[in-house]
């Protein structure tokens, strides 16, 4: 029986969200694993793997005062997940260009067909309101190699999009 949970919390950004969530979890005897916490737009988003011996109902109860006062949406799923043994990314893709619909679908579709398993993706809109600039960064495991990935994504350059594919060489010492 799993005692690990994926907690998702989202709400309007304000100071103290992380401190209050983690303090409530600590007080409830829960233990944090990998987490991702980042501001998206004016929201703050939290995803965390939490280990708890007492179950998801107790996690809800422990977090209720925090989610109520900070107006956070909370979602909890029981998961099968180890705290460790993550795959190591060996490829990185950076894409940027004038913002347009469908760019993520195009890039990730071609990348998936060329064997990429995405481990981390983040995208941002920069530039000006009149001329927004889309920036996409992806890290993953290229199961068919970085050259295959490069070949699959190269045609996108014809559309005026900058695409940079390169290996991530991890030095283990």
């Amino acid at each position: 029986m799993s005692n690990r949970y994926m907690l998702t919390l989202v709400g309007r950004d304000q100071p103290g969200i992380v401190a209050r969530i983690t303090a409530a979890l600590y007080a409830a005897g829960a233990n944090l694993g990998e987490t991702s916490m980042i501001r998206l737009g004016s929201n703050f988003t939290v995803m965390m793997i939490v280990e708890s011996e007492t179950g998801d109902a107790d996690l809800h109860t422990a977090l209720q005062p925090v989610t109520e006062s900070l107006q956070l949406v909370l979602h909890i799923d029981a998961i099968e997940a180890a705290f460790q043994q993550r795959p190591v990314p060996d490829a990185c893709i950076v894409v940027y260009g004038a913002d347009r619909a469908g760019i993520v679908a195009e890039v990730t579709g071609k990348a998936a067909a060329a064997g990429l398993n995405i481990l981390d993706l983040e995208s941002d809109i920069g530039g000006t309101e009149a001329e927004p600039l889309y920036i996409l960064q992806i890290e993953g495991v290229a199961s068919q190699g970085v050259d295959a990935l490069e070949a699959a994504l190269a045609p996108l350059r014809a559309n005026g999009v900058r695409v940079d594919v390169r290996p991530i060489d991890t030095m283990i010492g």
Partner: protein
Amino acid sequence: MAVLEILVYPDERLRQDSLPVESFDAALQQRIENLEDTRLAGPGAVGIAAPQVGWFERVLIIDVSGRKKTTSHGRLVLVNPEITEWDGYAMGREGCLSVPDYTGNVVRAERIHLDAFDAGGKPLGFDMEGFEARAIQHELDHLDGLLFLDRLVSRRQDLFRRKVYKES
């Protein structure tokens, strides 16, 4: 052949400074052999430093020659190594036998000049770059009680820029 136990952080012994080797004797040769056996038994490590096996003298071994497209001086046993010149900097991903299952971004000098002695006490000098220079800097940190964790920079905020060439 002797495969030694790798110290794993938070073992505080990884934090101590290692002492210069004073004598290039038979005992040193044996310890170097054990260090190499341990490196080869590990999961794909291109380098190892003596303190990682609880031997607190300034000795390291690196070998990046097995990597494609990598400038290399082959397998090197380096005693009392010292970097005397640094040039440029580059971001790269590192992991460590003493910090299992974690990798992170570290900024290192792109080119270095290294002075050292070989296992027999003969002076050596190398100009190194790229991956090999990175491996040396990582291992040399161990001799000074430092881990790559001490030099981590954000994973999220870097664009992992390679050199930018003008498109023709």
